[in-house]
C-alpha cells in the first residue's frame, strides 16, 4: 500500500492508500487525505488541488495536457494537479494554504 505524506498549513498528515489511488477521489469519498486535501472540480480545470511533489515524483505518469495547460512553468518546480494523478508508490507532497 502506498504511503502518502501530505504537508499542509504547517501540519503533516500521513496515511496509506490503495495502489492506483487518485487522492481527490479518495478525499471525495471521505478517506485519507480527507478533509485535508483541498479540491474542487476534479477535472483539471480549477487548480484547487495543486500540490508540490516533495518525494516520489519519479513514480508518477508524466504531466498530462490539463496539467500542462493549468500549471505551465510551475511543472518544472514540481507542482502537479492531484486530481490528475494515480498514486502507485509512496509519495510526499505539500499543498499551499
Amino acid at each position, binding site marked *: 500500500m502506498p504511503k502518502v505524506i501530505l504537508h499542509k498549513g504547517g501540519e503533516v498528515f500521513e496515511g496509506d492508500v490503495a495502489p492506483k489511488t*487518485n487522492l*481527490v*477521489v479518495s478525499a*471525495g*469519498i*471521505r478517506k485519507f487525505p480527507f478533509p485535508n486535501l483541498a479540491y*474542487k*472540480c*476534479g*477535472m*483539471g*480545470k*480549477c487548480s484547487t488541488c495543486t500540490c508540490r511533489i516533495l518525494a516520489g515524483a519519479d513514480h508518477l505518469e508524466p504531466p*498530462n*495536457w*490539463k496539467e500542462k495547460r493549468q500549471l505551465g512553468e510551475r511543472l518544472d518546480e514540481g507542482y502537479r494537479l492531484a*486530481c490528475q494523478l494515480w498514486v502507485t508508490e509512496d509519495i510526499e507532497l505539500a499543498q499551499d494554504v
Partner: protein
Amino acid sequence: MGQVLNPDELRTALETAIKGNTANASPFSLAWASGKLSRDHLARWCENHYHYVGPFAEYLAYVYARLPAEFEEAKDFMLQNMYEEELAADRHTDLLIRFGEACGTNRARILNPDNMTATTRALQAWCYTVAMREDPIVAIAGLVVGLESQVPSIYRKQTPTLRDTYGFTDEEVEFFDLHIVSDEIHGERGYQIVLEHARTYELQQKCLKICEIGAQMRLLYTTALYNEYVGAEIPLSDLGLAA
C-alpha cells in the same frame, strides 16, 4: 421476513445486482470498445446520451428535496453532486456536446429531443420517476449506485479507444476523462449513503431491486442504440455475440 444484511453483505449484494446487467456487455459498448463504431454512430450516441445525463442534476434535485433534513450528510452530497455536474468548472453536458461536435453533429441536434430513441425517452422518464416517487434512499441506490457508479468502468474501457483507435484529441474526449474521477467519487459516496441508511430488510430489498432495474435500464438503452443505429452495419457475430 428475511434477515437484515450488514453493510459488507449489502455492498456485495448491490454490486452483484448491478454486475448481472452491466452495460459493458451490450453490443453497442462492445462495438465501441473494439473500435468498430463510426463517428456517425458516436454522434447518434451523443444525441441520445445528452437526454439521459443532461437532466441528472434535476433528478438529484428531486431526491435532495425529499431527503429528510436530519440526513444532512446525504443532502450535502446530493448538492455537491449537482454542483459538480453543472458549475464546478465546465458544465459536463457542454463537454458532451464538444465531443458530439467532434463526431460531426452539432449543439442544436444534440439538444433536440426529437433525435433520441423511444428507449432513451424511457430511460429518462424512469430516472425522473425514481427521483420523484421512490423513497429517497432507494432513489439514491437506483440513480447513483445503479447508474452513476457504473460509469468509471465503462469509460475506463472506452476512453483509450477513443484516443488510440478513433483518433480523437485529449480535449475532445474530456467528457469521458472527467467522469472517471467524478463518478468514482459520486458512486462510492452513493454506496456509503445507502449502506448507512438502508437498515431495514424492506428498504434493503428495495435498494437491491432498484439497482438491478437501473442496470437493466442502462443495458436496455445501450442495446437500443445498437439496434437503432449500428446493427444493420455491424452484425452481432462481428462482436463475438450470438445473433
